């Protein structure tokens, strides 16, 4: 294994050298970096041209100029932006931070939703739900991302902001949303028509009722959850987690999960004052504290399979913290929305923060980041969701038709165990090897999404640099993305071997 990795690393370095050479020559020919100076009418024009030529070695042929760049790059010097005189390394660092902020959440959400929908679609193969999802996935797959982004800006942001001016959902809209929800849920659950009609109907009515209540109480202007809703949400999560994890018949796990929910609700009022003094690291610390608390409770309830109870209760603990956190941050919403810089139109279409709000505290800052991120993240999720759904569906179908699944069913395993333990885990293997590559590609920035939403991450850095023919910046960008992509490939190969024992490496 070690030999395999070493060998791959050495080839990767060779590939990287060749790719950077190719890219350098291409980038150097992408335009004229002296264009702005040639057109200028400054008296010292010739001197400036001379100076920049010296700085960028423009008098040297690009095929040779590469080695000037390589020589400096090996020593950790990626050069400077010729326009702003900024170090390329600092520019890359800043852009990288912005991109990670944007991409991390979007890709996690896309993977989780995609895997979930893919599995349901595979389990209900050739049903109406399956056909519907397949069609929607193909449609999303074929959408040009810039088109979606502009539409989101227009309808998502401006539409929602207009809605907030008078946040009442008309009854017709309520009926349509409820009906749509009912159809989706009803087609997703399996079984007889009667059962599906009933579940779908309940889901639709509940959705419409909740939205109607929210609309009637002006919830959208001053949102919040409160202990009762947190309890209900916690209960729902506990039931889902225990059902999927081990089955509701398991008494210790069930009781542990319920206890964690109760502890979470009991912590509601103490946590309010605790949150007031929270910042980023402390929030993360208390999240870990909640998970540990849950795991401990699960451990105490014990039973024949302590570790499963501990794990499930830990997950519930994490969710409870998330609800408490969400509730608290919602209490800041009205303050945020009513500041003069926002003026009741919270969803932003451009940029990554409101400059007037810098230094107004952790919570306001977090909300501000959120309102700026929500549109680009939605666009990214919409675009990458389809691929994961299709992939997961195919992978799950393949696994569920294998002999050992039939064996598991034949020996009387409950369907939940067959799907979750035998099917799901093995169907994840191909996805797991896909993820490193996708993540590596995402660090290159979502070029189009960032451009449309004015998010100054890696993608926008690249577009800007290409427009100015800023070879140093382009090369810095390419170096980072290229290295990440190659590392991603190696990780994917290694993961495949680790996860699937049938595959052997030949070194």
């Amino acid at each position, binding site marked *: 294994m070690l030999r395999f990795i070493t060998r791959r690393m050495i080839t990767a370095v060779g590939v990287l050298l060749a*790719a950077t050479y190719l890219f350098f020559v291409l980038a150097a020919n992408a335009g004229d970096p002296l264009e702005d100076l040639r057109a200028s009418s400054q008296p010292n024009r010739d001197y400036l041209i001379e100076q920049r030529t010296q700085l960028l070695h423009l008098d040297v042929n690009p095929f040779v100029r590469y080695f000037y760049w390589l020589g400096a790059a090996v020593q950790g010097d990626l050069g400077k932006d010729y326009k702003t005189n900024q170090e390329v390394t600092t520019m890359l660092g800043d852009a990288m931070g912005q991109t990670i902020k944007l991409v991390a959440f979007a890709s996690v959400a896309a993977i989780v939703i995609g895997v979930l929908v893919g599995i349901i679609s595979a389990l209900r193969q050739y049903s109406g739900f399956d056909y519907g999802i397949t069609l929607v996935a193909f449609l999303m797959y074929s959408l*040009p991302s*810039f088109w979606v982004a502009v539409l989101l800006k227009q309808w998502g942001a401006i539409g929602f902001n207009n809605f907030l001016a008078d946040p009442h959902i008309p009854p017709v809209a309520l009926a349509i949303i409820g009906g749509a929800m009912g159809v989706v849920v009803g087609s997703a659950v399996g079984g007889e028509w009667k059962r599906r009609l009933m579940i779908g109907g309940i889901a639709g009515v509940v959705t419409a009722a909740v939205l109607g209540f929210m609309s009637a109480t002006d919830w959208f202007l001053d949102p919040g959850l409160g202990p009762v809703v947190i309890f209900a949400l916690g209960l729902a999560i506990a039931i889902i987690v225990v059902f999927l994890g081990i089955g509701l018949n398991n008494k210790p796990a069930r009781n542990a999960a319920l206890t964690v929910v109760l502890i979470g609700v009991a912590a509601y009022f103490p946590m309010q004052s605790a949150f007031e003094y929270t910042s980023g690291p402390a929030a993360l610390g208390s999240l870990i504290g909640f998970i540990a608390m849950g795991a401990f409770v699960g451990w105490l309830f014990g039973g024949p399979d302590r570790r499963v109870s501990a794990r499930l209760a830990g997950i519930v603990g994490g969710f409870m913290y998330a609800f408490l956190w969400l509730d608290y941050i919602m209490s800041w919403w009205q303050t945020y929305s009513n500041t003069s810089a926002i003026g009741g139109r919270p969803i932003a279409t451009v940029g990554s923060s409101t400059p007037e709000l810098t230094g107004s505290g952790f919570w306001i800052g977090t909300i501000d980041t959120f309102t700026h991120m929500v549109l680009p993240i939605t666009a990214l999720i919409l675009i990458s969701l389809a691929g994961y759904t299709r992939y997961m569906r195919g992978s799950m179908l393949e696994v569920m038709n294998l002999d050992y699944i039939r064996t598991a069913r034949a020996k009387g395993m409950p369907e939940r165990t067959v799907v979750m333990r035998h099917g799901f885990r093995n169907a994840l293997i191909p996805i797991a090897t896909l993820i490193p590559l996708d993540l590596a590609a995402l660090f290159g920035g979502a070029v189009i999404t960032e451009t449309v939403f004015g998010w100054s991450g890696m993608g926008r850095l690249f577009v800007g640099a290409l427009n100015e023919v800023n070879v140093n910046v*382009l090369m810095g960008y390419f170096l980072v993305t290229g290295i990440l992509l190659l590392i991603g490939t190696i990780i994917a190969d290694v993961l495949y071997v680790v996860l699937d024992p049938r595959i052997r490496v030949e070194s």
Partner: protein
Amino acid sequence: MANMNAEAQAAAVGEVETKGLSLGKIVWGRFVRHKAAMISAIVLTITILVVLTSIGVGPIPGWWMWSPTDIDPTIQNNGRPTLQFNGIVPSFGEHPFGQDQIGRDVFARTMRGAQVSLLVMVLMGIIATAVGVVIGAFAGFYRGKLDNVLMRLTEVIIAIPTIVVTAVIGKVFGSSSPALFGIVLGLLLWPGLARLVRAEYLSLREREFVDAARVAGAGDRSIIFRHILPNSIGVVIVNATLLMATATILEAALSFLGFGIQAPNVSLGQLINEYQTSFSTRPWLFWWPGFFIIVFALTINLIGDGLRDAFDPRQRRIPKTKEMKKQAIAKAETEVAE
């Protein structure tokens, strides 16, 4: 009677293929049964016909009254689309897709954009497929050193994110001519296909029919292109189709960023780029090019999916439970009758 029923059942499960149909007929039969793919193929054909004939190609005139460069000085109703539906009967009016701010007909401009996008897409697809097949075939057939060199080359190209390298290329070539742009992009999109073709050749070259051809005196080139290639045609066709769908979106994205087709040339992405600022005042300028991009990408993707199913030898379309039940009942009835 019972015999016929068994046959019908076999037909439903797709087992009649054993009767000695040619591969082409089997694939065609399966493709026709794939409803989404069939509908897509029809929609795509009609769309392409409209796109090509409406404003004509090159010197050949089309049937549409405006050309993309014509300026209608009377901007009616702020240039709103005149396309209307009375029930399902459409009435087109003078400018069905509307007019832009200086009075040009959006329908004609969208058609011109679609023509250019189609040209780029087809060129990209054909060239990427040809290069990918040749490189993959040689790497897989000869193995050893040549394989090593070619595969390192594909890795070099894969190491550069597609949109990045195509943007740089587009900046260099995009402004000159759409055809050149398509050709150059095609030279960069082949690595994925080359890898798949290589894998096919690696396994097919060990089969008996290759030995038989060699004994009969066939040379390397004849074995590669006459004997092995037809056997891997499924992989090639499916991936060439999906490549074209990718190419459509890629061209549009690059032109949108300003690194692809540039004015005075028009393409669907370039039109969206040109008109995106007027979304709030003239949204129709933005709608129609996007609509055509989606039509192309979606239909081609669905056709590719249908082809994949059609070429997949493991494909056995399982009849719906309803059909199975119906057949079981029919069978029981005939048995009782007998």
